[in-house]
């Protein structure tokens, strides 16, 4: 299987503190991989490194065989990696449709160079896909949390990515909405996308992932099929440790 994304020995420091220590793994074409781990494990930082928002101290990110380490966010996006943010950040004063248009206009150009649909039509299709058709004229700041998350997914898809990084898209959602999110992720794979998830609460993991990568305190502890990783003693103790600190606090 073709490797879409390879993470090689990534280390990230803020001052003297190491947020990520020598993390390596790869994601293959058509896979859904979840990054799991307790708070402070470095999951979102890893997303930031891949998307160019944060610079790695050392290590390499390889996308489709090309090193993209240190690229600015817009270049990473145009190469074909799109992401959402843990705390959804739609453009607050733009409507849902305009949010998506930004992605269409500035993201990766269409592969065949020609455009079959008008921008507005394409935006409407994407909003349909995430179920926001009715809200297309609502400003970003007036959408509910779940709607903002879905808008972020539509906006990310608008940049025509081949790899999609989804950060906690199911956190804090109702069971019904979590189901919908799972359906959405699976349907995106059907469209030929490779997906990397951050899933702290393990909402989606069991349902959709092919593989899990578990991080704890900036280090990879284990990777493999969901059932193996979830029962791995180190993963259990990492999550259990978190629960204990939470109870103490």
């Amino acid at each position, binding site marked *: 299987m073709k490797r879409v994304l390879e993470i090689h020995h990534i280390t990230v420091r*803020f001052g003297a503190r190491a*947020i990520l220590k020598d993390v390596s793994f790869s994601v293959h074409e058509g896979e859904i991989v979840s990054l799991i781990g307790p708070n*402070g494990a*470095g999951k*979102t*930082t890893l997303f*930031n490194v891949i998307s160019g928002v944060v610079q790695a101290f050392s290590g390499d990110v390889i996308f489709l065989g090309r090193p993209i380490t240190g690229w600015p966010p817009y270049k990473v996006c145009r190469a074909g990696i799109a992401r959402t943010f843990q705390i959804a950040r739609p453009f607050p004063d733009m409507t849902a449709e305009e949010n998506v248009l930004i992605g269409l206009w500035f993201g990766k150009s269409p592969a065949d160079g020609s455009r079959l649909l008008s921008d507005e039509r394409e935006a409407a299709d994407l909003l349909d896909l995430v179920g926001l058709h009715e809200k297309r004229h609502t400003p970003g700041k007036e959408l509910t949390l779940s709607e903002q998350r879905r808008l972020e997914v539509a906006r990310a898809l608008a940049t025509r990515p081949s790899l999609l990084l989804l950060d906690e898209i199911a956190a804090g959602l109702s069971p019904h909405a979590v189901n919908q999110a799972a359906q959405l992720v699976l349907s995106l794979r059907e469209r030929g996308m490779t997906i990397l998830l951050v899933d702290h609460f393990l909402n989606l993991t069991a349902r959709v992932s092919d593989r899990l990568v578990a991080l704890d305190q900036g280090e990879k502890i284990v990777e493999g099929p969901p059932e193996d990783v979830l029962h791995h003693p180190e993963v259990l103790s990492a999550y259990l440790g978190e629960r204990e600190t939470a109870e103490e606090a």
Partner: protein
Amino acid sequence: MWAQFLIGVLSLGFFYTLTALGFSLIFGVTHAFNLAHGELIVLSGYLAYGLMKAYGWTFWMTLPLCMLLLTGVLVAMHQVLKKVGEPFELNSLVMTFGMALIAQNVMLFFFSADYRLIPSSEAAVFSPFGRASVTETHLWTFGLSSAATAAVFLMLHHTFLGKALRATIQEREAARLAGIHVDRMKGVAFAIGGMLIGLAGPLFGRLAYLHPAGGLEATLIAIVITIFAGVGHIRSLLLGACILAALESGAALVLGTNWRELVSALILIVLLLWKPHGLLVGKRSAPEL
């Protein structure tokens, strides 16, 4: 020569401390950047000048009235700034920039664009180290500035009000939870700031020419020292002010008096680039990881 330089730097450094003290206190407690700070100092200087000229008051007689009037102005300013919305820092900056323009034009209206100087004797009161001379202005500047700084220091560290102010500077939310009336503290900060500005003005009028557009330099100096020292640290404020005074006097000595302004501007730029969030007391939420 060196003794004279040292006397100049020390007197200027104490004056800068006084200049920065009010700004720093207001910024620390309310997070408002008062870009009209310098203009208000100049305004107070004009007041003293006017009183001396029109009614023949002596220098020290003008001080209480200047302090009182400027306290009134600052309290009024606080009432207006209270209504400013988010983002407060930027909006207060723009708002006080507007107030500075108003103050400039008010001064232009009453005192015209001519340069004025509060007359003071250049004669040496005494001469340490042989040829160096300490003038009356040196003594006034040093005496009043150090007295005001000491008073604020004692107030902050040894009174209940001072402790409440310091708590508000250090951690506003915690202070609120501890039962401190934060909005009242803001009013108090503006009032004390007004007194300090009122005191600094007449001294400013003795040290430099008064001109309606001459306030920006004092504002820049206050900002530079505040950013250097962080808010609420009076000893660092004093140190920063003396370093700045030494650098400026040095530049004036080497390059000529007028290049002095460049020093504070350059230092401000470098400080802001070095700690772009340094203004916020380091209480920013952790970077998004």
